């Protein structure tokens, strides 16, 4: 019942059936590499993240046990914390570090945080996204959806104008995807390394000549929630491999 109500409240421009996994928009070569850890450099970050998970006296492992316990977690993020804050995986890890491990935060986009986030997300690889959007999350979802549909920047484009209306079509050398965040943190060839979804979103904002919001900002967090909801049923691809 509740689910039907939600669908009625937030009609999507594209129905869930039409949204396709990000990997289907990759070139065959890139897609094959994404599925092959022996050829996917993103796994260097996953390996490092798993080492960080075990490192130190008050390690992640000392509370959570083996990192495999994180299976499924990435399918449910971003999520609303007990104090009402919307946290993505990066935010959850940073908060855990400060509050439970008594350590300084790694910092958004630091190699350590990217590694640990990739290692945690990878535990859900192939699992279907199923982010809760009821209760406290509902208002955040609405905000993110509004951001997605708003025309922005000098090019006056909304996210949906590319990622709904023109998905699958070519833009110069690229194929426009449905704009899901399921592959992040991802190794991007252009970056020569790993990067977060928010770094990618900053590139989107730049692309339409709009305001680039800070990493971890409310704008990108709520958008991330909307993208995760839009991706429901789609497989987690992190660590992704992107152009």
């Amino acid at each position: 019942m509740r689910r039907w109500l939600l669908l009625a409240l937030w009609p999507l421009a594209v129905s869930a059936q039409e949204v396709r996994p990000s990997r289907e928009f990759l070139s065959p070569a890139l897609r094959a590499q994404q599925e092959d850890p022996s050829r996917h450099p993103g796994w260097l970050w996953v390996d490092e993240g798993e080492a960080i998970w075990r490192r130190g006296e008050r390690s992640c492992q000392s509370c959570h046990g083996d990192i495999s316990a994180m299976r499924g977690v990435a399918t449910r993020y971003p999520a609303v914390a007990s104090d009402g804050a919307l946290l993505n995986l990066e935010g959850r890890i940073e908060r855990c570090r400060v509050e439970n491990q008594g350590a300084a935060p790694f910092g958004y986009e630091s190699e350590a945080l990217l590694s640990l986030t990739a290692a945690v997300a990878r535990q859900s690889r192939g699992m279907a996204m199923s982010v809760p959007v009821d209760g406290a999350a509902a208002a955040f979802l609405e905000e993110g959806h509004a951001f997605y549909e708003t025309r922005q920047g000098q090019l006056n484009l909304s996210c949906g104008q590319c990622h709904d209306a023109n998905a699958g079509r070519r833009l110069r050398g690229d194929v426009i995807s449905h704009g899901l965040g399921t592959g992040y943190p991802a190794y991007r060839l252009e970056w020569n390394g790993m990067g977060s979804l928010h770094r990618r979103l900053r590139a989107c904002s730049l692309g339409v000549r709009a305001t680039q919001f800070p990493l971890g900002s409310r704008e990108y967090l709520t958008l991330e929630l909307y993208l995760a909801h839009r991706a429901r049923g789609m497989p987690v691809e992190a660590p992704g491999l992107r152009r």
Partner: protein
Amino acid sequence: MSDIIARITLPEAARRGEVVTVRVIVRHPMERGFDGPGLTPVPRQILHTLSVTYAGEEVFRMALSPGITANPYVEFTTLAVETGEMVFEWQEDGGAVYRRTAQLVVT
């Protein structure tokens, strides 16, 4: 840097005389060394050599230039001759040497 992160992939076991494919990815920026108008000069810092020793002798060597992609990937083959360690050694500009090993079981 006193540590290097690498991922070495080879079959867990091979028959004697079998040709084994080895894949190696290593984390390194392969800094080309930029210098130009408006740029802050960055010294070149790359891994310039990878050598692989197995069963008593060097079986593979690669000379790398700044034209090799960051986080270098390489794939090569070697004959499985005996159970033992494959030793991978990278030489970096400035003289640092990094070493990793992988085990090949030969039946």
